[in-house]
Each structure stands twice: as C-alpha cells, then as structure tokens.
C-alpha cells in the first residue's frame, strides 16, 4: 500500500537517491515545484523501485522509479484515477513502453506534443483583444472546466486565475460585452508558455484563436526567448493553426495513461 511521506526532507532524499541511481523514471519536477507538495505525496516501495503519487483534487499524479530490467509490481487502485504522464523524445526507441503499464492496469488516455516558436518580428496586436478583468474570472474558469479534460490540463483554481489576471497573463477577445474567447499564458524563466486557450462555440471558425495567439506573442516579444505550448495530437485543427503561425514541434511528446 502507499504510505504518506509528509515531510520535505524524506521526499527530497528519496528523489535524489533514485535520480543518483539513474533509475528509469517519469519524475522530472524541479525541487521548487515538488517540495511544497510533500504533504500530498505517498510512496509505495518495492525491491527494485518505487511508485510515488501526489494527490490532486480530481486524481493522483503517478510517478515511478524503476531499476533497469526490473519487473513492475501491482499498482493498487485508489479512490481517484491515477494519471501517468511520460515525456519523451519522439525518436525511434524512445517512446515509453505502453504495454508494460497496461499489464498493471493503465490504459492510454491522450498524447500531447510540444510546439515552440522563437520570437519573431512582424506580429501585430489588435484592439479586439485585451487583458481580462477580475470580474471575468469565474466565467473564464467555467469555460476552462467545460473545455478541458480535468487531469493534465494544468487548470488553475480561482485564486490562481485571479492572480494571473492581476499579472496581465490572461487575454480576452470581446465583442461588445460578450466574451468570445480567452488565452492564459505565463513565464517559465525566459520562455513564455501558453497554458490554456478557449474560443466559445458560437465564435469559432472566425480567426479568434489565431488573433489571441498573435496577441500573446506580441505581448511577450520583448521579454521572452521563445513561445511554447503543448497541443493534443488528436486535435489536428489546433495543430494546423499553430503551424500556420510559425510553431514547430521540438521533438517532445507526452503520452498519458490512466488507471481508473
């Protein structure tokens, strides 16, 4: 069974020990991200590895450390789904072995690929896009929850969204008083990351998404090294839009599996 970890020191030494052994892992979070989550962490240790989970409101993020050629042990079912994401390079032989995880109860859920674009000149802003107001937060959050799957979409809670709006990291496309769509972005060091973008159903096929993306690029062009985003591989129209705007795949894909 999984056992709670609770304190940061135990979590840190566990992760550093397994990384030093160069075990196979999908755990790539930096310390500043995972240490504050220590109270949400539990571990299941076995002879040649361990499973590590972090509790989220809707699910558990599932990580593993396994010595090379070791056999997996059974993964216990919990009260919420376990979500296993493995980032990898889309090169021959680098894709994760899905069958290994299917044997312990996971099934394929979705795959995303990463696109990037160095900042370029010639992108222009438009007055139809503006920064979101605090009063729009609940409407934007509702749109996010309607349009994204709950486990891997990095959806913020209301406080986090309000902070992003305050930091001028949420753009909205408006027609009069009507919200047509929004885009939330943020900085990871000098890389600007698109977190979520939604165009309302009645406003689709009118270039609103492209307008929001162009406005984002224009906003960050003087401060960011590049723009970056993850797009689902089963969303060809979104991929096409980004490619037209100049985004290119950087070779990284992230298949996600789930155990209900």
């Amino acid at each position: 069974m999984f056992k709670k970890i609770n304190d940061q020191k135990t979590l840190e030494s566990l992760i550093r020990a397994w990384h030093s052994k160069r075990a196979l892992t999908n755990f790539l979070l930096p310390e500043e991200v995972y240490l504050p989550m220590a109270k949400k962490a539990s571990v299941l240790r076995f002879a040649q590895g361990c499973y590590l989970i972090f509790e989220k409101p809707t699910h558990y993020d599932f990580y593993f450390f396994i010595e090379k050629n070791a056999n997996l042990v059974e993964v216990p079912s919990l009260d919420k789904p376990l979500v296993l994401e493995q980032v990898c390079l889309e090169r021959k032989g680098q894709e994760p072995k899905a069958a290994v995880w299917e044997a312990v109860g996971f099934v394929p859920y979705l795959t995303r690929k990463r696109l990037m674009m160095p900042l370029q000149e010639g992108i222009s802003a438009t007055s139809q896009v503006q920064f979101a107001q605090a009063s729009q937060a609940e409407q934007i959050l509702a749109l996010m929850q309607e349009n994204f799957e709950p486990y891997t979409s990095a959806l913020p809670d209301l406080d986090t969204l309000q902070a992003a709006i305050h930091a001028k990291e949420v753009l909205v496309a408006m027609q009069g008083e009507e919200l047509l769509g929004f885009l939330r972005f943020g900085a990871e060091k000098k890389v600007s990351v698109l977190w979520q973008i939604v165009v309302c159903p009645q406003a689709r096929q009118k270039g609103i998404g492209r307008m929001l993306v162009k406005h984002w690029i224009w906003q960050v062009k003087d401060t960011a090294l590049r723009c970056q985003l993850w797009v689902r591989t089963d969303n060809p129209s979104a991929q096409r839009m980004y490619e037209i705007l100049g985004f290119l795949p950087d070779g990284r894909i992230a298949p996600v599996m789930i155990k209900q």
Partner: protein
Amino acid sequence: METLLKILAEIRPDVDFEENKELVDSGELDSFDIVTLVGELCEEYDIEIGADDIVPENFNSAEAIMALVTRLQED
C-alpha cells in the same frame, strides 16, 4: 567538444549551444532535457553524475558541461 555538441543537438536541435551561456537560467533547458542529457553523458563518457552535480551552473553552457565531464573523468 564536438561529440558533446552532437549529443546536445540531438536532444534540442532548436537551441544554439555555442552562443547561449545561460541554458538553464534562461529556461532553454528544462529538467527533462537535463535528465536526458545526464543519461547520454554517462553512457558516452563512461562517468557517473550524482545528484550533487546536477545544478544549473554545471549545465548553463556547453563549456560548463564539458568541464563537468572532464572533472568526473579525472576523479
């Protein structure tokens, strides 16, 4: 150095490793890149890179990475 640049280009063909001297500090290389790179370096140069050596200053430039490899080969 040529071998190292080849390894780096395979992991991130979009990054200019000869010019950028703040690869980690700027966010050009993230933790996935570092873990992938550590695996490749250990195999290519037959070294062990411990957790204590996985710090930004050892990976901020191709020169810093090469210096780390050289130090670990001499240890």
